[in-house]
């Protein structure tokens, strides 16, 4: 049930979830007006929206599930008796977390990393909307080249980006075997 609560927002439109940050973070947005009313800041904080901060915040908001689900999946499959055995052997809760649960959750983290890396690498809409055109990413650059019909340049960028992403994914796949983890 709790998992369902986390999942539902991810099945709704990405763009809507992205622009919903605008009334929250904007110059007259929720955060700024609350802070001013509390007297914490004298004038609106400008770097909340249309900044790198906003881009990162929105991306975390958009892509967390792709990390949560694989880790959830691996954690669910940890045999409870392993944890009990560790406790019987005198491990503290922290030791159990560090030496038993974390290593077993590693495949989930690796798969989640693959998802997040590729999604962020390909993202241009979040960067464009949330930074207000002030910062750039590879994908945004490609998108601009495409809209200027400079397909060769965009294609060259695509090849480099693809090689980079495949290298990263290849490196992660050396750590886990996806087929075993499903």
């Amino acid at each position, binding site marked *: 049930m709790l998992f369902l609560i986390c999942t539902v*927002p991810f*099945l709704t*439109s990405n*763009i809507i979830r992205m622009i*919903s940050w605008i*009334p*929250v973070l904007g110059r007259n*947005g929720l955060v700024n007006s609350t802070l001013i009313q509390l007297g914490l800041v004298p004038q609106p904080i400008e770097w909340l929206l249309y900044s790198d901060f906003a881009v990162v915040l929105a991306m975390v908001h958009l892509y967390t599930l792709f990390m949560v689900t694989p880790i959830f999946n691996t954690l669910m499959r940890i045999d409870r008796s392993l944890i009990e055995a560790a406790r019987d052997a005198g491990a503290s809760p922290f030791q159990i977390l560090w030496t038993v649960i974390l290593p077993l959750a590693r495949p989930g983290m690796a798969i989640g990393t693959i998802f997040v890396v590729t999604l962020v690498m390909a993202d241009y809409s979040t960067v464009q909307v949330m930074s207000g055109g002030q910062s750039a990413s590879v994908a945004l650059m490609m998108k601009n080249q*495409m809209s200027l019909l400079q397909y060769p340049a965009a294609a060259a960028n695509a090849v480099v980006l693809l090689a980079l*992403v495949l290298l990263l994914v290849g490196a992660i796949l050396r750590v886990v075997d996806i087929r075993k983890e499903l």
Partner: protein
Amino acid sequence: MGDRRGLGFYVLAGFFVLFVLFLYGPMSAIFILSFQGPSGGLTFPLNGVSLHWFGNLFEKQAVGDFGASFSRSLILGLLVMAATVVVALLAGLAFRRRFFGATPLFYLTIASLVVPSIIVSLGIGVLYQQLGMRPSWFGSGFGAHLTWTLPFGVLIMFAVFNRFSPSYEEAGRDLGASPWQTFWHVLLPMIAPSLIGVGLFGFSLSYDEFARSLLTMGTYNTLPLEIYAMTTNVTTPVLYALGTVTTLFSFLIIAGTVGAIALISRKRAS
């Protein structure tokens, strides 16, 4: 277990509540703002409460044609859903056995998932241009969406069949059922909830798909592209009204799917 819930539990529970707030907070802001009065702007406070912007949504607008792009997205989503369910089921069945080229095929499927979406879009767009064909939402757009939904569906079916014991089918076979009967009466009912889940994924991934659609939709926009165009041009709460409507629609679909799954499991239990 019988543990007492320590400090750690409450810290983590608090963190989880914050996380849920983080997930839903911005969405509820948009939801409230869509009921903005006719003179209201894009931010708080509300200038009266009205349904003005919802009405505005269905009128003719300078930018964006909501109705047409919505129905296109809906049809495309349903098509993608059907294709994804069928292919994922068949692929899942096929991969239960080892066959020639299984591993390369598997990695090709994964590759389609990890290739950055904008590259897929560019590739399909350029290919169509080279071949002298016109991209269209039901042709190249459909294909572009499948490059995203199919690997997802196949991965889910892998996970399902990895946990599925072949002894049920053996039992069916021992009782004299033909392979088709085993499939129809034993296997399919057991994996039906997962198939519905795959369908839901296929539909919502396609319904929200954006980057892959950029160069592949041709003349007519799907809904996400339309919304994206609107974010740069529209400065009235009609944008929020649109957001509320599409989000409610997504919620309806999700609720319907979860309900269907619950119904099937209950029927099986009785």
